[in-house]
């Protein structure tokens, strides 16, 4: 049993090859979502800086969320050069697992995520797919929990760029749901062996 007690070995670091094309799609419902144009500008700046080919669509209906994702998948699969990575940004009102289109109808996030998975998008098979979802997932509000003296948050640190649209640091409280890592043995809807 001594071998089981040997020193832990460092992880071998493997990186995704990012030398190919980077493609991004942003779908944003701006209706009754003040400030969303500012968010889209910030995303456009970020994608330009990170050398992504960025496409932005405003005010999709629930059906158009799906159609735009389908079109994005076809664009990726027909891209002439190898594709390294895709970003999808989804911004709308929402509930857990659902986004609300401009037409007030709901679309399931699961259906959107399916479009670019390894089965449905060959050019992205084994390549990183990053989803950024800016939407409500329910009605709960988090007032935070008070910290004791020895449970300090990090100090004030300024970001190098644009100011964030939130109030400045409050070291007395912390969100209820941090410092937890969720590790599931399988993805939702699938068996675990």
């Amino acid at each position: 049993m001594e071998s089981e007690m040997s020193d832990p070995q460092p992880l071998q670091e493997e990186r995704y090859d990012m030398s190919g094309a980077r493609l991004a799609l942003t779908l944003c419902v701006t209706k009754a979502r003040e400030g969303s144009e500012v968010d889209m500008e910030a995303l456009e700046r970020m994608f330009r800086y990170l050398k992504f080919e960025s496409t932005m669509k405003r005010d999709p209906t629930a059906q158009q969320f799906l159609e735009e994702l389908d079109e994005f998948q076809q664009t990726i699969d027909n891209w002439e050069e190898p594709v390294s990575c895709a970003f999808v940004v989804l911004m709308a009102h929402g509930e857990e697992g659902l986004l609300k289109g401009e037409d007030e109808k709901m679309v399931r996030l699961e259906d959107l995520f399916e479009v670019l998975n390894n089965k449905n998008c060959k050019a992205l098979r084994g390549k990183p797919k990053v989803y950024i979802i800016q939407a409500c997932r329910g009605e709960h509000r988090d007032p935070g929990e008070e910290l004791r003296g020895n449970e300090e948050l990090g100090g004030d640190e300024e970001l190098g760029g644009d100011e964030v649209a939130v109030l400045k640091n409050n070291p007395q409280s912390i969100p209820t749901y941090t410092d937890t890592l969720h590790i599931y043995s399988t993805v939702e809807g699938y068996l675990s062996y």
Partner: protein
Amino acid sequence: RHDEKGSGFIQTLTDVFIHKKGSILELTEEITRLMANTEVMQEGKPRKVNPEVQSTLRKKLYLQ
């Protein structure tokens, strides 16, 4: 969202992805840390908002 400044989440995320170096999981930790240090006021009451990351990445992803 702030009418003129946008959402804390997107503004923090874009700032971190542009101005910080590290793997994307390290950057999302930084976003969570920064958002934990801040609060928003809603109807006169302080509120906390933090992102949740679920990952099935098999390798390190570096965007810079």
